Every structure is written in structure tokens, then in C-alpha cells.
């Protein structure tokens, strides 16, 4: 079953074409990666997926709904971690989790989410006093506190140290095992390789290729996803 269907999505800001005909599908329970340069159209695509933007043309369906029209209904079933978003400086970790839990109809128990993501020791710490990695971990936990069916994570492990990164990978693995559909936007190829079932390579607002890491590597005659990406991105130029 397709959980996300994007067909010929287009979006321009003035004269700048951000997304120029993007098409891909994500199946239920799949972990799907979106890779690409800065400016390749990743963030605009993600913002159309979660209903923050409406495309100029094309269709987007998430769990059968049009996010641009049914953003709030869809938001009940969607968990989102945005690139460099933040919280009020004086809001404490436990308060943030409790607050976000209260925003969803069927939320997970925020205390369990706090324990699971190792945030208990930081419960009484204010957002403004957290380190970059701690903030990232909290924002991830907030994406999951609504007990979502689909999770969209934009730049998952940016700012995390290697140990925290591995720990995050392990937790994403658990999500996957629980049947949650995950969309991962990243420019860390090792991360995409380790976590994703399939990948869409975005270049200049288009999908240059979609497939498993193995398929992309085989198609380009390269040795790794990173090399495959560079070959595809170059071929598209």
C-alpha cells in the first residue's frame, strides 16, 4: 500500500524553480530516503508533504489525503522534525513533551517518550540551556509524541556526536520495526545507506533516480551510494 504519493509536483518562488516535477511513492512501513544538494528541492518537497506549502502543480497524497487541504486532520497522524526549528528558550524539556502530547488526539505517553529518548535527566532543563545534540534529540522525541503513522525527519542527525548518531539510528530502527513509515531527508550517505529501504535522489528540483541503494549502485556502476549519487547528479547536469 502506498502511504505517500507525489506526482509531478512543481513549486516556484517568483522566478526560482524549487521543485520541477517531482514524482515518487513511499510504501507503508518503508523507510524512504531523500538525498540531494542544498537547493535540490528537498525542503520544499518536505514542506508540501506536511501541508506547510501548496505546490503550484501536481498532486500530493499522504495517507490518502491532500496535505494542503487537510493539514490539520493529517497532522494528527504525522510526526515532523523540521530543519532548525526551535522552542521558546525558557520552556523545559518535560513541559515541551507534555505540551506537544496535549496537541494530539491519540498521543503516546509523553513520559515514556521522554525515557525512551534518554531525556529524563534533562526533564527540568530549559530549551535554551540544551546543547545542539540535546535539542536535536528533543525535537525528534517531539516528532514522535503524537504516536504518528508517518514520520518525516529533515536532517535527522545534524549536530549529533557519533555516539548520539548511532543511538538515533537504533531508535529509527525500532520505529521501523514497529511498522512506522519514515521519510528521511539527509545528506549523510552512510545514514541513508544504513537506514533506508529505498532512496530518491533529487537534483535541481527533479528526481534523478529512485531505488534501493543496491539498485542505484548497480545502475551507475559505482561502489557506494555516495558515488552513485555523484554520478547521477553529474549525469543530470
Amino acid at each position: 500500500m502506498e502511504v505517500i504519493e507525489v506526482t509531478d509536483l512543481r513549486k516556484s518562488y517568483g522566478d526560482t524553480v524549487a521543485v520541477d516535477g517531482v514524482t515518487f511513492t513511499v510504501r507503508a512501513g518503508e523507510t524512504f530516503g531523500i538525498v540531494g544538494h542544498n537547493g535540490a528541492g528537498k525542503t520544499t518537497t518536505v514542506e508540501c508533504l506536511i501541508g506547510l506549502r501548496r505546490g503550484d502543480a501536481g498532486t500530493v497524497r499522504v495517507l490518502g489525503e491532500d496535505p494542503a487541504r487537510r493539514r490539520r486532520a493529517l497532522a494528527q497522524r504525522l510526526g515532523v522534525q523540521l530543519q532548525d526549528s526551535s522552542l521558546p528558550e525558557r520552556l523545559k524539556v518535560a513541559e515541551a513533551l507534555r505540551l506537544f502530547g496535549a496537541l494530539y488526539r491519540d498521543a503516546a505517553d509523553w513520559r515514556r517518550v521522554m525515557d525512551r529518548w534518554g531525556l529524563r535527566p534533562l526533564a527540568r532543563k530549559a530549551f535554551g540551556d540544551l546543547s545542539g545534540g540535546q535539542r536535536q534529540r528533543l525535537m525528534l522525541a517531539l516528532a514522535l509524541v503524537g504516536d504518528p503513522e508517518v514520520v518525516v525527519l529533515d536532517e535527522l542527525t545534524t549536530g549529533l556526536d557519533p555516539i548520539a548518531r548511532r543511538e538515533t539510528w537504533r531508535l529509527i530502527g525500532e520505529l521501523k520495526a514497529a511498522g512506522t513509515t519514515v521519510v528521511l531527508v539527509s545528506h549523510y550517505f552512510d545514514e541513508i545507506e544504513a537506514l533506508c529501504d529505498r532512496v530518491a535522489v533529487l537534483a535541481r528540483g527533479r528526481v534523478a533516480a529512485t531505488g534501493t541503494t543496491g539498485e542505484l549502485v548497480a545502475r551507475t556502476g559505482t561502489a557506494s551510494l555516495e558515488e552513485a549519487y555523484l554520478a547521477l547528479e553529474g549525469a543530470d547536469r
Partner: protein
Amino acid sequence: MRAFTALAAAELRLLARDPASLFFMVAFPLMLLVLKRGDSGAVPGYLAMIAAIGGMGALPGLLASYRERKVLKRLATTPISPVLLLGAQLVAQVAAGLAGSALLVVVTIAVFGAQPPGNVVLLAAAFLLCSVMVCALGFVIAAVVRNTRGASLIGMLVMFPMIFLSGAAVPRKVLPGSLRQIGDFLPLTPAVEALGDAWSGTAAVFPLLILAGIIVAATAAGAALFRWE
């Protein structure tokens, strides 16, 4: 409703944690009252001042910073409606102002032995209208001025002259004629009048109607101009 209550409660808690808000909405009016030796005639004006400091002095910078730091954007990906999100800010500001005002009124009566307000219900209604009105003006400032520093600064630049010329901080009687005339056109002036009327117990409907009109106009302008990012 649960989401709205949780958000408003969180915002109120954040206000209570902010030393500047706490000082200007609670301690500062009490200090002025002491300097005035507990003169209850000044109190209705101070109530308007408390509301104005929250709605125009603090709210625009707060909203602009939420927008700039992508707090609003993050909340926009949750099921809460954008209107409720701003509504929670308003409720928190009004509640904080109400707490500061209640304390000021109680101290005026209990410590300085002033006569209680003539019409408490009307006083509360006037305060609510006044508080919602200044918050609506604060939304307009946050809608027009995009960055945090600019919104804070413009909020202060609008708020300070207004509290002096509208009779909130000092009685309009003491102002020279030309400055008093400016006050006639400021939105806080009918708020000070309404609060003063309610305090003395001489109910007048007209200032309340003006406040309601300003609320409608400013909310419409704010809604049309406000940008989420």
C-alpha cells in the same frame, strides 16, 4: 480545547518566568502606587498601563521571535489551528495582566485603605476589553514588523508615548493642551476612561464600544497582514 488550554498554560508559565514581564506587570505598578502614596485615583490608569506593557511592550517581540526562530513553523506542523495558537498567546497575556491588576487593586484597598471599586464587574469587563485591545494592536505590530528586534522596538515606541498621553501613567489634566489633544486619538485613552468610570461606579457604555470597535479593526488588520514565516 485541551490543546488550547495546554498551550495557554505553557505560555503563561513562560511569562511568569520572564523577569522583565514580571517586573513591569507586577512590581513596577506597585512601585508607582507607593510613590503616589496609595492614591486610588491613579489606579485605573495603572491597570491600562499593565495591559499595554504586556500587549504592546512584550507581545510583538515575543511573536516575532517565535516566527524568526521557527517556533511558529514547528507548531504549524501539529494539529493545532493557527488561530488558536495566537489565541493562546492572547489568553496568557490577558491572564498575566489580570493577575498583576488584581494584586494592585488588592494592595490599594488593603494596604492604603482606599474605597473598593464602584463596579467590580464593569471594572473587570473594561480591563478585559482594554487588554484584548492592546494585544490586538500588538498583533498588528508583529504582523507589520518582521524581525524580533524591530518588533520589540516598535512595540516600545508605540507603547511608551501612549501610556503617557492617554492618561494611563499620568493624569491627562497635567499635560499641555496640544499633547492632551493627541491623547484624544489614541486607542488607550477610551480604555483609561472606561476603567476610571468603572472604578468610580459611573457606568458609561461609549468608551467600551470604542474599545470593541478597535479590537475588531485591529484583529482584521492583523489577520490580513500576519505572516507565519
